[in-house]
Each structure stands twice: as structure tokens, then as C-alpha cells.
């Protein structure tokens, strides 16, 4: 890997927007690092799944959407939900189980949801959300609007029944859905080749007559361009697209997992193509000053730290709130 490799700059994206991408990726990376520390300190219940390494997929894809478009993601969803615009502090708050958390402390790390920004849910049952975006997408068709629903899911999730039913229905109904497979090579502790008899998951799109493309998920420019095209097709009523974004999670599957099953040197090779580094190089190549980027990084770090501090100061949910929100 060349030391000067950089992300691909889409000609049509203003530099200002490209800077926003970097800012978003930085905040997400710092957010995840805080989460990592929070577990260590016993502040996070249940499990948590970090997306560090996959930011270019989430940010590149979400920034190809309008704010009114919808997005569903997995339990490894902090990055996606933040990329769609959820506030840092309320995300922290939810993970900490606070009353002001996004879901009033009822969802937790695996279930971050912010309907107000179109982040309709983080789903922890494999495949569960793919059928759900069929409905949000059909609602757009129903109303004659041109909104799009984007759905993230992992490589391992392509083996579950709901995946199949969803791609089929989306295709036959020509729904405005963009399916983005975050292929990070592993499902839990299993390398994809251990569970899946095809080398490229994108071939599965053919089973539904659906356009499919496999891309470099570390390159935010490529992600953004590809998703933008798929979104445009969806808006134009031309139906769904399947995108397989090759990426990598730097941490183990969940907090308990050190990732010992990985071949030596694999992580290191991927780290060289860290999306933050690649995109920083692209920005530098476009004339952005290093100092601007350094300051952006420092600001992001501070912003995240402040958000966490705020969230930590919030109250726990009142006992009686546990009985609310079951029915209207």
C-alpha cells in the first residue's frame, strides 16, 4: 500500500462538504474511543460493538442522503446513527442509560434510534431491519414522494432468511432502497469464507435482478459516489441497489472479544488504509492546510469530550418511566 494513497475525490463535491466528512469521521472515531474507555470503566451495560475502521462507509453513505431520507443500521451502529445526524450527547446518554438518552435509556448501545434525523433504528437481531426498510421505502412510493431508505448490514447477515425476502421484495416492487453491506470480513468470530460459499457477496444481487457493486469501503470518495448513484436511481423510481463495501473493524466483535482469530498482520494492513488517513491525504492534496486539519481533529476531540461530560451529568430515568411507551 502506497504511503501516499488517498481517498478518491469526487469532482462534484465541494471542498467544504469534504471537510464535513472528515469532521464527522473524526467525531465518530473519538466517540467510539470514548465508548471503549467507558466499557473498561463499567459504564456500559450489555454489550457494545464498535465500528472503528468502518467510518468511511457510514459517513460516505449517509452524506449521500437528504436529511429526510431514512437510514437503518445494525447494533454496530454508533457510527451510522451519528453520521445521519444524531447528537453526540444524546447518543452517549443512551449508551449510559440516561433519561435524556435518545431512547430514554430503554434501548442502549445496540438500539440507538433518532427518528428526528431519519435514523429509524439500530437492530440487534440479524436481518431484522431489512424487511422494515421495505415499508419505509414503500411509504415514499405510496405518497408519491422521492425519499430513499438506506439500510446497512454486515457480511454475516447475508446468510439469514430475512435478507433474501427483503432483497426479493424490494426488487419486485422496485422500492427506493439502497442496501449497503458492510463487509468487514467477519461475522462475530467467523471469517466470512467459513460461513458463505461465494467469494464476493455482490453476486447475490443477481438472484434478484438487482444492480450490485463491490467497492473499497475505506475510500469515502468511492463510497459517496457509489451511494449517490444508487440514491439517484432509487429517487428516479428505478429500484434498489446492492452495494458491498469492503471494510474492516479494528476492534473485536464486541467488547469481550480481543479478535485473536485474525491472521497476523491483517489489522495492520487495514490500518494503513484507515479512512481518516486516506481522506486527510485527499484534503491535503486539494490544498487544505495541515493546521486546519489538526485543528479540526482537536475540535472534534473536544466536542466529543464535552458531549460525554454533558451526558454523564444527566439524570437516570425515573423508575416509573419503565412503565411508559408500551402502548400509545
Amino acid at each position, binding site marked *: 500500500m502506497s504511503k501516499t494513497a488517498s481517498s478518491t475525490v469526487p469532482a462534484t463535491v465541494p471542498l467544504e462538504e469534504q471537510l464535513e466528512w472528515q469532521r464527522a469521521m473524526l467525531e465518530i472515531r473519538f466517540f467510539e474511543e470514548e465508548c471503549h474507555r467507558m466499557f473498561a470503566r463499567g459504564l456500559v451495560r450489555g454489550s457494545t460493538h464498535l465500528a472503528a475502521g468502518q467510518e468511511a462507509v457510514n459517513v460516505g453513505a449517509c452524506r449521500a442522503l437528504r436529511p429526510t431520507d*431514512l437510514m437503518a443500521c445494525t447494533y454496530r451502529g454508533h457510527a451510522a446513527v451519528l453520521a445521519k445526524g444524531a447528537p453526540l450527547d444524546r447518543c452517549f446518554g443512551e449508551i449510559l442509560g440516561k433519561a435524556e*438518552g*435518545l*431512547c*430514554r*435509556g*430503554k*434501548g442502549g448501545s445496540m*438500539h440507538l*434510534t*433518532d*427518528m*428526528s434525523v431519519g435514523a*429509524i*433504528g439500530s*437492530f440487534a*437481531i440479524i436481518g*431484522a*431491519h*431489512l*424487511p*422494515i*426498510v*421495505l*415499508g*419505509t*421505502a*414503500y*411509504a*415514499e*412510493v*405510496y405518497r408519491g414522494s422521492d425519499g430513499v*431508505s438506506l439500510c446497512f448490514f454486515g457480511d454475516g447477515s447475508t446468510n439469514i*432468511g*430475512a435478507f433474501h*425476502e*427483503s432483497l*426479493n*421484495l424490494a426488487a*419486485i*416492487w422496485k422500492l427506493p432502497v439502497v442496501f449497503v453491506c458492510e463487509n468487514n470480513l467477519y461475522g462475530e468470530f467467523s471469517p466470512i469464507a467459513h460461513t458463505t460459499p461465494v467469494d464476493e457477496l455482490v453476486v447475490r444481487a443477481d438472484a434478484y435482478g438487482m444492480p450490485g457493486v463491490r467497492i473499497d469501503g475505506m475510500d469515502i470518495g468511492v463510497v459517496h459516489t457509489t451511494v449517490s448513484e444508487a440514491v439517484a436511481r432509487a429517487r428516479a423510481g428505478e429500484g434498489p441497489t446492492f452495494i458491498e463495501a469492503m471494510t474492516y473493524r479494528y476492534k473485536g466483535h464486541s467488547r469481550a472479544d480481543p479478535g485473536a482469530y485474525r491472521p497476523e498482520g491483517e489489522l495492520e494492513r487495514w490500518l494503513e488504509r484507515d479512512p481518516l488517513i486516506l481522506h486527510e491525504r485527499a484534503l491535503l492534496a486539494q490544498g487544505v492546510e495541515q493546521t486546519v486539519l489538526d485543528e479540526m481533529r482537536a475540535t472534534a476531540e473536544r466536542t466529543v469530550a464535552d458531549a460525554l461530560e454533558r451526558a454523564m451529568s444527566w439524570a437516570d430515568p425515573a423508575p416509573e418511566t419503565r412503565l*411508559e*411507551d*408500551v*402502548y*400509545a
Partner: protein
Amino acid sequence: MSRTITYREAVVEALADAMEEDETVFLFGEDVAEAGGPFKLSEGLLERFGPRRVRDTPISEQAIVGTAIGASLSGLRPVAEIMFADFAAVCFDGIVNELAKYRYMTGGQVDVPATIRLGNGAGAGFAAQHSQSVENWFLNVPGLKIAVPGTPADAYGLLRAAIRDPDPVLVFEHKHLFNHKGEVADTPEVVELGRAEVVRAGSDVTLVATQLMRHRALEAAELLAGEGVSVEVIDPRTLVPLDLETIGASLDRTNRLVIAQECSHDGSWGATLVSRLMADRFEMLDAPPLIVGGDETPIPYAGGLEELWIPSVERIADGVRRTLAF
């Protein structure tokens, strides 16, 4: 003014009226559109409302339930049909883990006004996998509402209420009642969810039953009237919410409880009802509550066997007699 229609006609009419009333209501499922429904429960609706609002799906129940959830999130009022209620098993996750919990897990961020209609019940020889009374699978799943209409009026009224409701409602339509006829008003009423109906007043024993059993319970009550026994027959109509007040008030007068249900005992709505009533009205009872139900077996195919499995009028009457004899 009122008229007589079948349960099937009541369902079709409810769907049509709901779609007429509210532009966000739409219906979908396997063969509901061009074929008018596998049980003809949507006959004529495609012609009337067009393919945007009456849609056929592939054989993909998970996708069907998911579509209902997603459309709800986006502010529509989807009505999904699951042909045989037993097929709820292939989309169980969507119903119990997503649909039921969506509002709660998001801290109340959304309404989820989906209606799922399912063809319930035994009696026609469809055997163990196409005859179950599937409402019992969902009792331990807070977040769902459950309607079990037993008459054309309730088939209409509960379905209309379900579609208007901001929460997910499972509506179990009983296959063996599709041709059953009953009275409905010219402009049929919407039936509030959570209100039991006292189908027949009585003073000696409270007999609770739904769907097909409601009719057999009524017959049993008539039979017993001839023996000088006064049976109060109550149809809860929805199992969630459950109208404990009406049933409890009856019990306070009769002091005896019999339940007739078309399912085995364990994990059933009848057992649930007994337990709830025991907690509140233990001292009101003069005899042990008695459940007349299906055997603790799958439902057999052969006519003679299925007939024995489903509680008969005679078995129900006998349950009442035993309770009175206690």
C-alpha cells in the same frame, strides 16, 4: 336499521370502509389483490382501490411483517394479511421482537399503527399446522394488542378499531366462521378494543369464550337453560387489552367460572384469565374455575379426531354442570 351479512363480508366491508375513511390505509399480503384473497376476504378491493392500496406480495411473511412495521413508522396505516395464522411462526421475530417493542425500545419516538390479520382456528380438517389458535403464542409479549372477533359485527367493528389504533394489533379471523351470518347495523359500529360483550345474561355461572367457542358456549347455555341453569356468556373480544372488569363483575354475581377455548391449556389465554381472576377475586369463587379446551396434543386431521379435539357444545355444557355440582 340492520342487515344480515357473513363474517367474510364483514371483513371485506371493514377493509373497504377503512380505506375509504383514511387515505393512509392499505392492504397487502399473498394473493390479496388479483385473486381477492385466498379466503376471499378482500374481494373487489383491488378493483375499487387500485394496486397502490391493495397489493400482492411474494411468499415472504418476514417481508410482509417488516413492510407493515416500516410503513407504520412512516405514518401509514398498513393492514397485512397472514393467510393461515399458523404462518405467524415464520415471521414471529418481526411480530414479537420488532413490532411489539418498537415504541418501547425507542422511548416512545413513534406510533406503530400496524394491523396484522391472520386466519385462525380449526374445524375444517386442515391438520396441525393450519388449524391452530395462534393468539396464545403472543400472550407473553407486551406491546401487542390482540383481537379475536367471533361474529360479523365484531369482525367488522374490531378490525376498524384495530386499523385506527396507534398500536400494533393482531386480528385473528376465525376460518370456520367465514360463512357464519349475523346482524350488523346499516352503518356498522366500530368496537372499542378492550370491551367484553355479555352475549347472554345469566346468574348461575360465568362462561367465557371467543370465536367458534362463543357460539358453542351460547348453544350450551341454551341447552342448560332447559335444565334450569342460568349461564352468563361473555366474549372478551380482545385478549389484550382484557376486560377484567366486565368478567369480574359477572363473577361477583355468579361465583362460578367456566372458560371454553379452542386450544390446549398450558400458556393459553384461559389459564391467563384464571390466574388474573384468582389474584383479584379469590374469595368470590364457590368452585374451582374450569377450562374446557383442546387436548394437550397437536390438532389431528381425521374428522372424528378433530371433532373430539375441539370442545363441543356437550363438553362445554358438561363443564358447566361439573362446576355447578362442585
